[in-house]
């Protein structure tokens, strides 16, 4: 399992009702259903991903995230998860509002644009970074809203949201002391656990 998914798996409470946005082939939901007895739905638009979910018995709904989550009631779930999709949305900020309307807590992962390799790529080569987490060229990338670890923290602060946990994913693991101390510089993948502001 991908490093960020392994960490999320660890964070999810038993029996939670989950919404997994951009659930891919359903690997995470399938594992969570078997290991933790969670229920819920994945949303996806990729045809192969949808078929793979159906084959696994994961509930998957073909739905474009840019259309919002209006078909889910307030507090319909306990937890909304979105891995590696925030940067591809038209309005990541509005999606964050939607996620915390549907559930009290959400987990979000995205590629950290301030990762030192990306900085070096842009700084020394003078080209838009291309890497394992950002494999596309600038003209055909679906990642239209790249951001940094710090950017996301600021957005949460501006919205008055509570960051209950944050971590970084690096290559195969969860990182070491450098990534914990300077996540914005050394974290390749940003992982946040966010709750609604205190009432």
């Amino acid at each position, binding site marked *: 399992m991908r490093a960020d998914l392994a960490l999320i798996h660890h964070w999810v409470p038993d029996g939670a009702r989950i919404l997994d946005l951009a659930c891919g082939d359903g690997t995470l939901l399938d594992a969570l259903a078997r290991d933790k007895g969670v229920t819920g*739905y994945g949303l996806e638009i990729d*045809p192969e991903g*949808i*078929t*793979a*979910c*159906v*084959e*696994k*018995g*994961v*509930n*998957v*709904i*073909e*739905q474009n995230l840019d259309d919002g989550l209006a*078909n*889910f*009631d307030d507090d*319909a779930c306990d937890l909304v998860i979105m891995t590696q999709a925030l940067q591809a949305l038209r309005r990541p900020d509005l999606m964050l509002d939607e996620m915390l309307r549907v559930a009290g807590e959400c987990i979000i992962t995205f590629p950290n644009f301030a990762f030192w390799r990306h900085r070096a790529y842009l700084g020394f080569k003078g080209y838009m970074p291309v890497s394992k987490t950002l494999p596309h060229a600038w003209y055909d990338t679906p990642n239209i809203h790249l951001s940094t670890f710090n950017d996301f923290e600021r957005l949460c602060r501006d919205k008055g949201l509570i960051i209950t946990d944050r971590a970084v994913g690096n290559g195969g693991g969860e990182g070491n002391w450098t990534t914990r101390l300077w996540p914005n510089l050394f974290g390749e993948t940003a992982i946040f656990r966010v709750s609604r502001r205190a009432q």
Partner: protein
Amino acid sequence: MPEFASDSVGLVTPQTAHFDAPLALACGRTLSNYALVYETYGTLNAERSNAVLICHALSGHHHAAGYHSAEERKPGWWDAHIGPGKSIDTDRFFVVSLNNLGGCHGSTGPTSVNPESGRLWGPDFPMVTVEDWVHSQARLADQLGIERFAAVVGGSLGGMQVLQWTLAYPERIANAVVIAATPKLSAQNIAFNEVARQAIRSDPEFFEGWYAEHDTVPKRGLKLARMVGHITYLSEDAMGSKFGRDLRSDDLNFGFDVEFQVESYLRYQGDTFSTSFDANTYLLMTKVLDYFDPAASHGGDLARALAPASCPFLVVSFSTDWRFTPSRSRELVNALIRAGKRVSYANIDSPHGHDAFLLPEPRYRAVFAGFMDRVARDLDLEGH
């Protein structure tokens, strides 16, 4: 021995089940006895756990797969999806496909004899509903010794029957596949049905439905009804790419005979249908469509109406279907989500409009087969 493709169920023979217990209908009338004609494909396993029920659409019938004879030109109407190795794999599943009550292909309907009067039922045949159909299908399952279907599957009006199964007999259906359907008709859908009905009823040969006693058939009306219906089954693009503005001859002849290929096609479809389908049955089937609305008895709240359902659903729609658009399927999906039911939904890109549900589009096949594979796996069904 005739040769059939290796993924065909081959030669099939329809059977008839007779029922003597009266069936109380939603309209308040009762059928004292009736018959249902059906076909089966594959083998019922010892546990009787591998049965799949196929529910047909407006002009469908029991002949869903295979051939009635070596000479038959076309296989059953859903042969693309039923057979060895196909989405509904007859190496694993025992498939039951029937002609619904009120039909004109062998089951009791307007073309059968009314035992009380001794004459044909004709327009006197009671109005039936999706609820009545599902009730009668459950009785057929009883007679076949099937306590619980591994899946109930249907497209269009067939999908409505699947939905009704999940509400009326949740303990008897393990999985539901609802394709190109809707939880209720829109005003526009009903309007098209009404045009079709008026076409039939205003035909001078209709005789208030007693045409058989006048040794005639309201062919012109039935033809028109089918022509109107057929337009709603195809997408604008599909018609465009199939016919465009092609003419049958090189020049315009400035008259009202057939000039454009699309006119010729529609007339042919209408003519064929008008000699093979019963007008009273067509009227009845369109009313079955109009009446279906499980949310109506729950203040229009579909999510509340779905409360009894307990099985996983697969809902499929097609991008260019304008008879039952993808948004009609999403209406069902969203109500299922709101009701906390297990559901997966795929909207298949297809140029073929409503008719796409009959065709073997690759992505449609992959999702459908993937779902049925999971059904087989959950029920421990082995292919042989």
